């Protein structure tokens, strides 16, 4: 299941990433012109995509962390068991 989600995310990510890089280049090129009269623009699109990639990466990392060796969480530590060999009634001799 984990793999499937990864693949889905991956296939969705590829074009998104590509476009993000493309626009970044475009935006910086525009800035170089320094047209002070143009309306204030901010490249929200690449910000969005960058943020989403960040979210997805964190999410997947979190999941991977949980899935790998789930049982060794600290509160579940095994208790050493010492069998009590002593019999109940003290011997009288």
């Amino acid at each position, binding site marked *: 299941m984990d793999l499937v989600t990864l693949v889905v995310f991956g296939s969705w990510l590829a074009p998104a990433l590509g476009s993000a890089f493309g626009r970044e280049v475009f935006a910086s090129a525009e800035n170089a012109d320094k047209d002070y009269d143009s309306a204030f623009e*901010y490249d*929200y699109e690449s*910000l*969005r*995509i*960058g*943020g*989403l990639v*960040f*979210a*997805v990466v*964190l*999410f997947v*990392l*979190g*999941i991977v*962390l*949980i899935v790998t060796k*789930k049982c*060794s*969480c*600290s*509160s*579940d*530590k095994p208790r050493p068991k*010492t*069998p*009590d*060999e*002593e*019999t*109940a*009634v*003290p*011997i*009288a*001799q």
Partner: protein
Amino acid sequence: MGYGRSDSYRVATTQDKDKKESPKKKGGKDLDDLKKEVPITEHKMSVEEVCRKYATDIVQGLTNAKAAEYLIRDGPNALTPPPTTPEWVKFCRQLFGGFSILLWIGALLCFLAYAIQAATEDEPAGDNLYLGIVLSAVVIITGCFSYFQEAKSSKIMESFKNMVPQQALVIREGEKMQINAEQVVAGDLVEVKGGDRIPADLRIVSSHGCKVDNSSLTGESEPQTRSPDGTHDNPLETRNIAFFSTNCVEGTARGIAVCTGDRTVMGRIATLTSGLETGKTPIAKEIEHFIQIITGVAVFLGVSFFILSIVLGYSWLEAVIFLIGIIVANVPEGLLATVTVCLTLTAKRMARKNCLVKNLEAVETLGSTSTICSDKTGTLTQNRMTVAHMWFDNTIHEADTTEDQSGSSFDKSSATWVSLARIAALCNRAVFKAAQDTLPILKRDVAGDASESALLKCIELSCGSVKAMREKNKKVAEIPFNSTNKYQLSIHETEEGNENSYLLVMKGAPERILDRSSHIMVQGKEQPMDEEMKEAFQNAYQELGGLGERVLGFCHVFLPEDKYPKGFAFDTDEVNFETDNLCFVGLMSMIDPPRAAVPDAVGKCRSAGIKVIMVTGDHPITAKAIAKGVGIISEGNETVEDIAARLNIPVSQVNPRDAKACVIHGTDLKDLSQDQMDDILRNHTEIVFARTSPQQKLIIVEGCQRLGAIVAVTGDGVNDSPALKKADIGVAMGISGSDVSKQAADMILLDDNFASIVTGVEEGRLIFDNLKKSIAYTLTSNIPEITPFLFFILVNIPLPLGTITILCIDLGTDMVPAISLAYEAAESDIMKRQPRNPLRDKLVNERLISIAYGQIGMIQALGGFFAYFVVLAENGFRPYDLVGIRLNWDDRSNNDLEDSYGQQWTYEQRKIVEFTCHTAFFVSIVVVQWADVIICKTRRNSVFQQGMRNKILIFGLFEETALAALLSYCPGMDVALRMYPLKPSWWFCAFPYSFLIFVYDEIRKLILRRNPGGWVERETYY
């Protein structure tokens, strides 16, 4: 067979009602009536009188017509099941109980505020409506969740119920007929045989070696003989009454049913149990206290800002909306779910360790427990007689009593042992039931008396097949045990090659056996019995009897060939053979041994500051021996009687304060006043109550609770169930426990292992600590959520944080980290500290509130406001110019509002900036909550000592950040939740504050550790 017992058979069942000066129970008279003496009188009547009373006949039984008439009059012979709460009531309890009520009030207030807004404004803001709906949804979902959680446990409970209908053999109109036990009526002539469950309270009219197992009623491990003669005034002690739902282990008996259904002794106990009212669980009390604190803070804030806003010139209605808004903002929306999930996780973890918790809240109770009242039979002990000691060759040998035969063995090389084993195997009527060869010997079922089974298993274990031994030595004659002889005798053919053809073996009460012996066997050689040997015998006998063990003597003789040639006709009625001048071989003593894990568990409980009291229906000597064996009376501690015996002075001269341990007899208990009882419970650390009735067990529990203790009761029998119910937490045994006891209990040990209680205590204490952390974490973010609204009112700035973003924090980002704190490992050895004091150590106290609200919360709010001002400043609104801007800002018609640089903003543009601020504030809270969850991991230790091993917590950190980014950047969020993408730099606004929180709290904890008991600890250790 009460050999070796100095104690007379006493059960204290006399009424306890007089002692309770205030019958504080509800349902008053009925319940008190049930606590009274058992009203059976038939045991004092002659059989004829009983027959007359029920219009029945000793031979013919009832007529069918009469039986039908009685059945209609008395109803079926079955216990009325305890009134079950209808499912919808249970559901409503989950929906409206405890914490939920706070959320419901919040939701109602929201709807009220929305109603006011709707009535007064043209276009009311939907915030209050949404908030109300979300609050209701949260309560309903959590309610469903915990309802199903508990339903799952009760389903497991259902599976315990014995569905097989019981059958009974009755004689009606002279004909034996098998009927459903439910059809048995008073006056029926009932026949029972070994293996049957007794269908009603019976007055025995005739019996053949009938023995019943009363352990679930009185706690005696040994089967009791039943015979037609009345032996005692007390119905529980007399031998001619057999009780409903006890088991007949051997022999047959015929009796007249005198009580059926709920009127039986068992039925009365069951009714008493289901009638008892139980108090709230400790965690429920803590949550109540918590709600009080939260409500106090909310109302205080709300009312003061209500007054402030009036002073500031807001209208009444606006002020009321503010009041409601502030009160609702104080409700920690996510906490209910967090607490429920934390408890569920612990319940699951405990179920894996074989503790089934019936009621979610009971998960914590064991952790608060300060006193455990434990039943003996079946709980501390294995509930099977086992050979514990042997005396032969003038030495006491110890047998292995452990369940898995891991204990030490004794020297089996002596020839005396061979003889002793032969007698024990031959003079023994117990046999293994068929088709059990694959089972381990100790697990096999045995047909026969408990002590004979013990001997059988002991011999089978140490000398191999008893069956083969018996085949080699065919039995030719036998005198079974009877109470006048006090011995059992059998004559066997000897093995091939022996000069004598017959061997006489005898076992019985040691003194009787000794009387009949002229010789004694030492190292396989017979030697004459001299005074020295008799002395040694007496010492051994007393020694073993003093250990609470049942002692049997064994002797044998090879019948001389000249007098008893092969084919001699032995007559057991005439006794045409000698039964004197035998050769004494040895003693064997039996006890119901403690379970292997119990001594360890008792020791752990003790080091955890929990007092373990034994409450048993069994005899004081046995009880004391077991108590010593498992450590309830620790080594070196003496009772008053021990001190008296050691100093050789009368008991009355001993100062009771000198004795830490005490053994109290049920009959003495009933003469004690409440003060004396309190005195005993307070001043003795190691207490054993012996010979107690079910009612007295209840009184002991009530006594402990009166002294402020949180009491856990463990037990398996019907006689324990009133106490189980009354206790703060009743723990029943899953395998050996009776249905009634399981129903009355809050927790069930599925493997019957007392040691699981230790696990329960540990888990309970851990979850209490972790709930504190979880609550501290959740409450902290309340301050950065409320302050924006307060400043909105006070200084008229645009609203820094909206309702939706608050909900995103409380029900979104905060959830996983809060729950992950339930997985946190203990900071120190929680089993080494004292149980918490329910009056002093609260789940949520002022110090927790002060840390969460007053310190960390304030820093968080600063971080949030910093991000808010940064976002606005970058958009052109300097902080200074924001004050007082609110009316213009929120004015829809104002579309040319100027910022600090003279740029003009339309309403819609302003709102986008405002909601970007909300998002920035929200992200800042997430960032400062990172630090908060890390500092909440520990209450005393540094994070560097504790480590970051809690994976769920790290997952939580990742997940909350991912969620925050998702909410901010996901396309469509601006429409759906009005959250906008943030510039990366805005994420870092709160970082310094996050760091500050971490450093601040590490320093606080450092000072706290350095100065134990200092100001910092007194004021900030929650």
